[in-house]
């Protein structure tokens, strides 16, 4: 057992990738699902083990093959990613339990076993994105996750052929983004001769502020990552991809995929870029901040006009990513803290929403639109009330975790005296009420009367786990805030914890 635990940092990534290869050859979809669950339970226990190691020994750097930094690839588990690692493990387990019935009805039954192979591939590579400490290795994981998620999205063609166009669109835009990122890596490597993050920071600090090649390289990297994490205006691939993918896939990606990449994005910003403070400030104040504000409003307003609910949620994701990048664009501890808080909270909120809508989708056997769900609050009360809880949290009402996010974002903006931005954020959160209430009105206050139908516990239990955790973290917010403050402190202050 000890042998495993020593390599836990690598295993959380390697294990899903390995099992993915095995599952591809298993004919029974039930067995494939079961193996996936077992793998992810093991994955979760590894993450907990990692967390315990982290809390007693601090940052863990895992060097593959014991090659020291400039030569070998290394993983790093520090304050920045420990929280996301735990959330990730727990969330993918819940989503996988939920995914079984969704895959059975949304994907061609012959493929539903093999889908778990892609599913694990996506999980392993996303975890790699969270942990890697090597800028080229990140590119590899980005591409594995992109390819596996594109395949998963295209599986949505079983119910709607538009999934294929969405997948193709994502493939082209995603590949361009990844290639931009590689160009940036090339520049950085040409200037420093290293790919390791820690080493890169040391090498870069030798250059004065005037090195154009480095700025060009960094800009390419940042733009590539912005494409991948759907920061406005590079978000166009996201809404169709999320809305036509099988619902379980939308859940996984909406909750975690963009978040994992955003974590690396802030690492580049605050660990590498902070060497050139002047350049960082220009990027944050004149590029990221305005783009985030536009994203918040454009995403919210487009969401208001959507009829298809999965599309509505996807556009709301654009706005929510806007809130996260808005918080990250505040160059101090409180801002980064708020960004991390919202990363955690929004993962839960949007995951829960997509799960609930996914269940409505398979019981409708059609697209979930505002018309088609009329009166479904009476037909499927358990799922609908979970959706209500998640939605209230999205608006940011007290006693839900969305409120905690809002509180910290306001606090960060306030301490930096950005009063106009506070007003805009408050206004946008009120606009969010409009699109959310359109759903609630159709669900619960429709003249169509239905008898309550029995619901599938295999689906509503995972949904309610998420919904209850939303309330729990809304009342006892200290867990999330602590993880976020560890993350922001180790980013901003560069502390080892």
């Amino acid at each position, binding site marked *: 057992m000890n042998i495993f635990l020593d390599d836990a940092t690598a295993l959380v990534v390697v294990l899903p990738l390995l099992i993915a290869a095995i599952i591809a050859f298993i004919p029974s979809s039930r067995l494939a699902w079961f193996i996936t669950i077992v793998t992810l339970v093991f994955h979760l226990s590894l993450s907990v083990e990692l967390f315990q190691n982290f809390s007693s020994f601090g940052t863990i750097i895992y060097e593959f093959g014991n090659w020291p930094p400039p030569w070998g690839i290394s993983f790093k588990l520090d304050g920045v990613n420990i929280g996301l690692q735990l959330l990730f493990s727990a969330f993918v387990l819940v989503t996988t339990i939920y995914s079984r019935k969704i895959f059975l009805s949304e994907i061609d039954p012959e493929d539903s076993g093999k889908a778990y192979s892609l599913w694990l591939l996506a999980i392993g590579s996303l975890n790699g994105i969270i942990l890697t400490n090597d800028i080229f290795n990140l590119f590899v994981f980005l591409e594995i996750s992109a390819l596996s998620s594109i395949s998963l999205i295209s599986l949505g063609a079983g119910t709607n052929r538009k999934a294929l166009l969405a997948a193709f669109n994502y*493939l082209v835009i995603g590949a361009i983004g*990844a290639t931009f990122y*590689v*160009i940036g890596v090339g520049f950085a490597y040409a200037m420093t001769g290293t790919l390791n993050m820690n080493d890169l920071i040391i090498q870069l600090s030798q250059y004065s502020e005037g090195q154009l090649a480095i700025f060009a390289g960094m800009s390419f990297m940042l733009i590539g990552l912005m494409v991948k994490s759907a920061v406005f205006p590079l978000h166009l691939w996201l809404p169709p991809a999320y809305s036509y993918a099988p619902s379980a896939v939308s859940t996984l990606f909406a909750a975690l995929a963009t978040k994992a990449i955003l974590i690396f994005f802030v690492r580049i910003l605050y660990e590498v870029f902070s060497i050139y403070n002047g350049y960082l400030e220009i990027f944050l104040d004149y590029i990221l901040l305005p783009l985030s504000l536009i994203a918040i409003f454009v995403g919210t307003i487009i969401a208001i006009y959507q009829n298809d609910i999965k599309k509505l949620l996807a556009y709301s994701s654009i706005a929510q990513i806007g809130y996260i990048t808005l918080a990250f664009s505040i160059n101090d501890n409180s801002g980064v803290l708020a960004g991390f808080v919202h990363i955690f909270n929004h993962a839960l909120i949007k995951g829960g929403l997509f799960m609930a809508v996914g269940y409505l989708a398979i019981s409708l056997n059609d697209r979930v639109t505002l018309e088609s769900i009329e009166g479904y609050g009476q037909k499927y009360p358990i799922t609908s009330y979970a959706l209500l809880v998640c939605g209230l949290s999205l608006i940011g009402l007290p006693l839900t975790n969305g409120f905690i996010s809002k509180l910290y974002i306001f606090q960060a903006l306030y301490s930096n005296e950005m009063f106009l931005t506070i007003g805009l954020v408050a206004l946008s959160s009120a606009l969010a009420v409009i699109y959310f209430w359109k759903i609630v009105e159709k669900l619960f206050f429709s003249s169509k009367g239905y008898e309550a139908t029995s619901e599938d516990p295999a689906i509503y239990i995972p949904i309610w786990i998420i919904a209850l955790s939303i309330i729990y973290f809304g009342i006892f917010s200290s867990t999330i805030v602590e993880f976020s403050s560890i993350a922001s402190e180790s980013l901003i202050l560069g502390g080892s914890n």
Partner: protein
Amino acid sequence: MTDFLYFWNHFAFVILMVSGLFIIITSQNYIKKIVGLAIFQTSVFVFFVSLAKIIDGTAPILNSVNNVYSNPLPHVLILTAIVVGVATSALGLAIVLQIYKNYGSVEENEIKKEELKENS
């Protein structure tokens, strides 16, 4: 002028990259888009490899004759990137095949027309 000659690999890279992007954006045909994507990616690979070239350098084998050699690491990285690029193209073509099966066309404007008809 000497700058231009010295940095000619940069210019070749930019021309290739831009033409790749141009194809992706302008062509209506999905297969051509994949070709454009491949050109775009390849331009970056070529650039990477050319950066590692040192005049008169050889393969990094330690012997008494040669003491100037090219950095092997970019080649290794690009090998990985090429594999990724091939996988991307393969997956893209597989999706195009499925699109053809479902829509009967791989032309973007024809598919858009059909979608519009479906919606109306």
